[in-house]
């Protein structure tokens, strides 16, 4: 039954969270999920808008009002079926999508004065978690095996999505991953307290149950080449390249190679993948001083800052060139970080990292900035305030200013066309690259983006790959 249109009378349900004082002592998930009743009540707020503005905000256009309707009727398995038509990993996107700038941003409920958008992500997450917990796996349509080999390079969200769709389409799928485990950024980047690894593990096991094979420790472009994979020995008819945007960028300022300066990638990989937070039970160490400065303003910076707190840092600050408003990080994460005690030092641009004779970091120097007019990207530009500098004492610096494309695979595949930024060039309708049979998607094509956009591109690629391989 549709609800009367009184958005302000129906407050949005917010996800309950662990107490900030307690949660910074552990890596347990911060945001607890909705209860069944909360999820249903939240879904019942939906107005079933005719033109589905929310779906247009979702990069893969999930039929949001349809799945919310099922939730409102407590038909959770059916709700999952609807989501899964477009999104293979709702347990993950429900947690990590920047909903406030995607689906929820377009929600009619939020447009009314004083109205709050529907908590679409939280409900999506609930559906995934409920079905996983209750063993309610929606029936998947599996095509009979067609005996054709399809290969997937990388195992991030794009690759996992392509692998799943190809397996369901009847292909014999192998995933080639450089690391010793699957998941890409979901594994080594996004921390446990934001997205428990158990969800990823369940998804990988599910793919295995569909017949997907995982070949780890395989750096394509070093251990094996694309041409080998297409060649007679391996015999892949089509390949998907989802190698991500893995190369950390540095600031190119003095002092950057001092001992206590980490890239966020290294810091998070040591902790998440190598489990340095359990050192010495695990062999890989990580070092966090008492005062930590994290440079950057995206999700990566926030993840690094909150991880540093959990590793025992006394004071952690995020230093960002612009203001909170321009920060690309998810809003919910900024709020969580603030609750946990992360300090935001804004309008400061790094100039130099200062060290002592033993090359340990002692401080960092910043240029103070002010906001200027809008730049091409529509964001306020930042302008240095002449002569205004600040030196902030610190013992560890983590640099989280973005990443570039990992080119090991594309460099070794000479006929592959890439653009100036080394992003793989594709036909955006089909995701096909300049090489016949090779398709690509995710951060390797777009540069650092989001989990859901990587998955959306992969779904498109999987369809084109199936068409390509079956045609020939």
């Amino acid at each position, binding site marked *: 039954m549709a609800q009367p249109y009184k958005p302000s009378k129906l407050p949005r349900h917010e996800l309950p969270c662990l107490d900030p004082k307690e949660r910074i002592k552990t890596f347990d998930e911060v945001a607890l999920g909705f209860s069944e009743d909360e999820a249903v009540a939240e879904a019942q707020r939906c107005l079933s808008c005719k033109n589905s503005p929310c779906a247009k905000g979702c990069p893969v256009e999930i039929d949001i009002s349809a799945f919310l309707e099922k939730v409102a009727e407590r038909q959770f398995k059916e709700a999952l079926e609807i989501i899964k038509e477009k999104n293979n990993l709702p347990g993950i996107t429900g947690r990590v999508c920047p909903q406030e700038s995607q689906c929820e941003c377009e929600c009619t409920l939020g447009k009314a004065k004083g109205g709050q958008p529907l908590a679409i992500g939280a409900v999506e997450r609930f559906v995934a978690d409920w079905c996983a917990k209750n063993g309610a796996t929606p029936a998947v349509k599996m095509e009979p095996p067609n005996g054709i080999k399809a290969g997937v390079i990388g195992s991030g969200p794009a690759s996992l999505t392509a692998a799943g769709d190809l397996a369901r389409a009847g292909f014999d799928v192998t995933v080639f991953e450089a690391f010793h485990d699957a998941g890409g950024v979901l594994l080594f980047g996004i921390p446990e307290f934001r997205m428990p690894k158990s969800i990823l593990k369940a998804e990988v096991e599910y793919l295995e149950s569909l017949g997907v094979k995982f070949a780890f420790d*395989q750096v394509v472009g070093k251990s*094996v080449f694309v041409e080998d994979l297409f060649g007679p020995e391996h015999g892949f008819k089509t390949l998907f390249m989802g190698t991500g945007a893995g190369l950390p960028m540095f600031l190119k300022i003095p002092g950057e190679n001092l001992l206590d300066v980490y890239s966020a990638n290294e810091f998070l990989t040591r902790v998440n993948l190598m489990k340095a937070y359990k050192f010495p039970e695990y062999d890989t160490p990580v070092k966090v001083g008492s005062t930590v400065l994290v440079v950057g303003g995206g999700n990566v910076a926030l993840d690094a800052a909150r991880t540093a707190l959990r590793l025992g840092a006394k004071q952690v600050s995020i230093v960002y060139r612009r203001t909170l408003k321009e920060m690309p990080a998810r809003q919910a994460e900024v709020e969580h970080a603030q609750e946990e005690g992360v300090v935001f030092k804004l309008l400061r641009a790094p100039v130099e990292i200062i060290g002592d004779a033993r090359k340990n970091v002692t401080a960092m120097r910043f240029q103070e900035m002010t906001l200027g007019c809008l730049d091409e990207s529509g964001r306020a530009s930042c302008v240095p305030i002449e002569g205004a500098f600040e030196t902030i004492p610190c013992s560890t610096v983590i640099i989280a200013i973005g990443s570039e494309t990992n080119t090991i695979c594309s460099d070794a595949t000479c006929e592959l066309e890439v653009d100036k930024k080394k992003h793989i060039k594709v036909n955006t309708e089909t995701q096909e690259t300049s090489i016949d049979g090779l398709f690509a998607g995710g951060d390797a094509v777009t540069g650092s983006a989001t989990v859901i956009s990587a998955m959306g591109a992969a779904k498109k690629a999987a369809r084109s790959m199936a068409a390509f391989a079956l045609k020939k």
Partner: protein
Amino acid sequence: MVNIIRKKQLNEVIYEIEVEAPQIARKGRAGQFVIVRIHDRGERVPLTIADLDPASGAVTIVYQVVGKTTLELSRLNPGDIVKDIVGPLGKPMELDKFGTVVLLGGGCGVAPVYPQAKALKEAGNKVISIIGFRNKDLVFWQEKMARVSDEVIVVTDDGSNGNKGFTTTALQELIAKGVKIDRVISIGPLIMMANTVKVTRPAGIRTIVSLNTLMVDGTGMCGSCRVSTSQGTKFACVDGPDMDGFDLDFDEIMARNRKYEPEERIALEKYKHECQCEKAMKTVEKCA
């Protein structure tokens, strides 16, 4: 997972193992390395491909016991399994007909020098190898080096083999004698590589060193292995490990390699302690 097929102790701290890794054996080139992770809780450690046999699929690794992982590795035997091995990583060495090339191998560094000497010889260069050890009991692979070199000079720190000196002093002597050297390759402890450059820079001989920085992924993803050069920061794992010795800040590299010393000590002590417990447990079991 890879099998260890052969193991040999070369001296009191250095071991040679052969693992079954056909793919790496086929693709590997001189100058490249692998990353090994012994078990699920293990660290990822980089080790140079010291030799390989594409026909049998065997890859030879020579390592020195310096900490927990290498100690643990030294306790594995043929038939045992190593959880992960990934490679070949890094750039292959620069190979050409340079003329006369002098290779310096210090201690464990003799092993990574071997494939480079072999490749250079095959490419038609005159190869002079200088290998150095602390004393004569530690000498290994002298024969093997002789097979791929026109001349091998063995030096020891204490002179116990009758030829006292460092690899760099032997190099200095060659230069002083007027031997025309077109390129020097130096692989060993950082201090030896730094000292090599001190000898070759005044002589203007292009010098390549092989960096052994700390690494995590080995594919350019983390920046742990980064070093400062005149062209900005470079990553040893993807831009190297071979690098132009004249363009490096060895003080910085040495300092960065010591970053985790206290933690490494903790890991090693904990492991030694556990091993003893294990031994005690085994004795207890046997008695029961």
